[in-house]
């Protein structure tokens, strides 16, 4: 125990001495929190709408006003000389162009056949789909509002009940998930690099000739990183609660316990990587490929797993972050307890034990 | 022909710390000049200033006849440098390292091959030249580094502890090579910890805490301080200085 503390203390000295890396280790989670909390906002709003109104009637202007007051569309920069919708799309910043040919007001009054045109920039398929839907909805509303009294639609209306995130805030979705990504990043990345560095400089050999067992070395080396990772996780968690007002409806204790289990799994991956590579550079590259990329892309953190092709969905099932992100979102947003989360928890615990076992064995073999 | 190295009151400060405090020395062309001192005495800083790697805080001087402030690009053509740390590319072979440094010194392509052949022969590198240099034993690596440093036939060769970690047999052979270079007219400026090596030098200077405390022919210095050998002379000088401080 004593020896472990000595090694941990030495590791803390390394961390404190390398101010620039520490700076990144603390600033990175903050930057990511703000970027994911604010910049990555997948709700489609502020769609830039260009308008070519050739009818120039009261009605056509009313339709246009309806679009801009809907909350979804904002005016694109106008270029008066353009009258071809395709050119508007190409040369201005418009995402969508509404074309009202002459005869709109007349058709509306006489109830004759008439078509309003909408040209969409399909490059961003997601944006285009949302814009098309919103445009159609606004258009329908306008038609209904123009019906003479007594002819209102007697059809189906819909009432919504929005669960867990009634204000539909993206940050409530991303920021808790980010805790999972950050914990993985700090734990796996930093441990793999720090062990690789001792290998590179030859100090690992030096340590091994001392009467410290390999197990003590590993535990001593990773202890400070558990601290650093938990600190970073807490930092993001704090921002989630205090700044982004993400609700915490479940148990803090449960979240903490699973946080620690998850960190141990991540550290085991870090140790594993370090046994396989010789240089810091490779450790970093490997850690990025094996942990960071999947944790961000394949964990359901940003992109929904159920929308992925089947083979990729299988791949996601071996990613620890996937389970932790399900757990943290469940606890924070839905107030889920262990009775709901036990399958995820079980997978995570089994994964952690397996990873820890392999890491310990690999490390010993490498030494012996 | 001017002196190879001629500096007056050279000083280097890092913040509050004075690494080199107003040293003056001159080295004649073709001389083997030894630069002694305890660890941290300021030898490496002094050498780095002479090579144009560091700008002096104050003082003046010339290396190979060129001003150390204004003409350090010209200096670089006339000097070779071999540092205590092996500083060739470990993942390149000896041959690739030599070719690379030859090109960096802009040795004409036709001459380069002959020069490399000559260096390989003089330093007996033939057996090791095609192996990645990290796979070489320390002694061979140092020889390879020397080869890279003399490829462009510099007038002055700066060697910063060139034989650290090398066994006695290798060291002896290394010095034989240095002697041959000196005979051919190269000025050698060597820092070392080994007193037997220092005795090979025409003149030595002993540095302590950034200052030169003694300068002269090794044999004369031994006589002057009434000590049995250079080692005792060195130790007595350094401890005397330490007591004064």
């Amino acid at each position, binding site marked *: 125990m004593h020896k472990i503390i000595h090694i941990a203390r030495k590791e803390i000295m390394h961390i404190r001495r390398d101010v*620039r*890396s520490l700076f990144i280790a603390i600033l*990175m989670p903050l930057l*990511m929190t703000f*970027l*994911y909390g604010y910049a990555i*906002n*997948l709700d*489609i*709003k502020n769609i830039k709408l260009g308008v070519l109104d050739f009818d120039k009637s009261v009605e056509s202007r009313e339709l246009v006003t309806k679009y801009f007051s809907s909350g979804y569309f904002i005016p694109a920069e106008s270029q008066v000389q353009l009258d071809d919708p395709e050119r508007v799309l190409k*040369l201005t910043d418009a995402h969508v162009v509404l074309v009202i040919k002459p005869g709109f007001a007349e058709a509306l009054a006489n109830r004759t056949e008439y078509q309003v045109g*909408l040209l969409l*920039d*399909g490059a961003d*398929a997601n*944006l*285009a*789909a*949302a814009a098309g839907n919103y445009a*159609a909805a606004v258009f329908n509303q306008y*038609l209904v509002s123009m019906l003479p009294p007594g*002819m209102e*639609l*007697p*059809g*189906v*209306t*819909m*009432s*919504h*009940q*929005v*669960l*867990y995130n009634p204000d*539909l805030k993206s940050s*409530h*979705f991303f920021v808790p998930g980010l805790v999972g990504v950050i914990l993985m990043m700090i734990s796996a990345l930093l441990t793999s*690099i720090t062990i690789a560095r001792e290998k590179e400089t030859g100090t690992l050999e030096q340590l091994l000739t001392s009467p410290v067992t390999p197990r003590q070395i590993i535990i001593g080396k990773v202890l400070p990183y558990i601290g650093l990772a938990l600190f970073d996780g807490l930092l993001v968690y704090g921002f989630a609660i205090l700044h982004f007002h993400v609700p915490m409806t479940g148990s803090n204790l449960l979240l903490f316990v699973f946080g620690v289990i998850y960190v141990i799994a991540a550290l085991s991956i870090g140790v594993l990587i370090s046994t396989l590579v010789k240089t*810091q550079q*490779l450790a*970093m*590259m490997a850690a*990025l*490929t094996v942990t960071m990329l999947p944790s961000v*892309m*394949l964990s359901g953190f*940003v992109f929904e797993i159920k*929308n992925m092709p089947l083979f990729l969905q299988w791949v996601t099932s071996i990613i620890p972050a996937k389970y932790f992100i399900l757990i943290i979102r469940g606890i924070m947003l*839905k107030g889920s307890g262990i009775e709901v989360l036990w399958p995820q928890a079980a997978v995570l615990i089994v994964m952690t034990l397996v990873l820890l076992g392999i890491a310990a064995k690999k490390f010993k073999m490498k030494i012996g | 022909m001017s002196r190879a190295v001629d500096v007056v009151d050279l000083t280097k400060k890092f913040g509050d710390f004075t690494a080199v405090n107003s040293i003056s020395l001159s080295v004649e062309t073709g001389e083997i000049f030894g630069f002694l001192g305890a660890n941290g005495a300021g030898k490496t800083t002094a050498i780095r200033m002479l090579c*144009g*790697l*560091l700008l002096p805080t104050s003082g003046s001087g010339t290396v190979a006849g060129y001003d150390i402030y204004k003409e350090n690009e010209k200096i670089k053509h006339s000097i070779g440098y071999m*540092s205590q740390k*092996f500083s*060739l590319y*470990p*993942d*390149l072979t000896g041959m690739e390292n030599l070719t*690379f440094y030859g090109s*960096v010194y802009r040795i004409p392509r036709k001459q380069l091959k002959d020069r490399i052949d000559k260096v390989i022969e003089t330093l007996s590198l033939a057996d090791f030249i095609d192996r990645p240099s990290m796979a070489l034993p320390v002694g061979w690596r140092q020889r390879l580094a020397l080869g890279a440093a003399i490829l462009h036939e510099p007038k002055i060769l700066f060697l910063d502890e060139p034989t650290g970690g090398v066994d006695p047999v290798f060291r002896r052979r290394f010095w034989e090579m240095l002697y041959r270079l000196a005979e051919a007219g190269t000025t050698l400026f060597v820092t070392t910890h080994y007193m037997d090596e220092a005795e090979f030098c025409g003149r030595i200077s002993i540095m302590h805490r950034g200052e030169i405390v003694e300068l002269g022919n090794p044999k004369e210095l031994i006589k002057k301080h009434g000590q049995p050998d250079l080692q005792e002379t060195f130790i007595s000088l350094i401890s005397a200085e330490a007591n004064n401080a």
Partner: protein
Amino acid sequence: MRTILALVRKEFYQVFRDRNMLRMIFLMPMIQLLILGYAINVDVKNIRTAFYDYDNSSLSREYIRDFSSGGYFITTASDIPLPDVNEAFTENRFDAAIIIPEDFSENIYTGQGVTAGMIVDATNANSAAISMGYAGLITARFNSDYSALASPITMRQRLLYNPEAESVYYMVPGIVAVLLTMITVMLTSMAIVREREMGTLEQLMVTPISTPAFILGKTIPFAILGYIEMSIALAFGILWFNIPFAGSWLLLYGVAFVFLFTTLGVGMFISTVTGTQQQAMFFAWFFSIFAILTSGFFNPISNMPESVQYLTYLNPLRYFMAIVRGIMMKGAGVLELYRDIGSLVVFSLSIFTFAWMRFSKRVE
């Protein structure tokens, strides 16, 4: 010139000798492209929906059919009684529930109007908002089919550039830009710092090599690697994902050349503020994350809060991203892209010049 060539050759020897490094440089982009190409999919599809149909009439079944036939909602059987439905949401069994009251068809036929209920799991706010939008649209269409009014006035929508609405067509050009940024910034900064760590930088400094020659010799190899990287990614995108390429290859490679000044400049700058490869890697990565997230890679910049939108103007990747997508998807030329290209040129040259000036030849 010869010095630069010697440096370039040396750099390539080093890269190509290191098997692991080589694997990383060439395999990583392929894996990234494959994973990102498939994973980055913000289309909202497959919304698992439980239907509670208390009317159970042909009209209500028609209404449900409208939902399940669009490809957005998939019917999920539920054995949980409606009062306990929240439990099913916490257990993540489905994403939405639609409740049809028992007087549904009767009220429609008698023209009284009726309210259907929808419960959504808004954990993912984006999906929730979009699924509610879909539901509203489906309901509106149902109404116009089954109520008195069928308006002769309609809206015709046409998708330009990407008629099949494939999001991978949009993401892959973006990934090309991202890869180019990450690889070149990281490799350049690390290559310079590595020389400092090994002591070979000091050895080079005593040689008569000039600063411009050193900088060019250290950056050209990574510019070439960047080009190779980009070409592999493009080829992969075109052959595997069948991405259309509408514009000019020459323009794309020309603009990439300009953009490389930015990334190489940033790489150089990072090498001047870091001492170890580890730090260089961290800084490179830090820069990349910032650049990627504010480039409009994942989501339109117009969606971001205003303050963040201003920030994106400082991000050279923003312009390059728009240019790559414009060229590849829309066949845009200089006429359409002159503003982005202009901004990119200004940024690239100033960043590179700044880095160059900072890069002092002396090792202090």
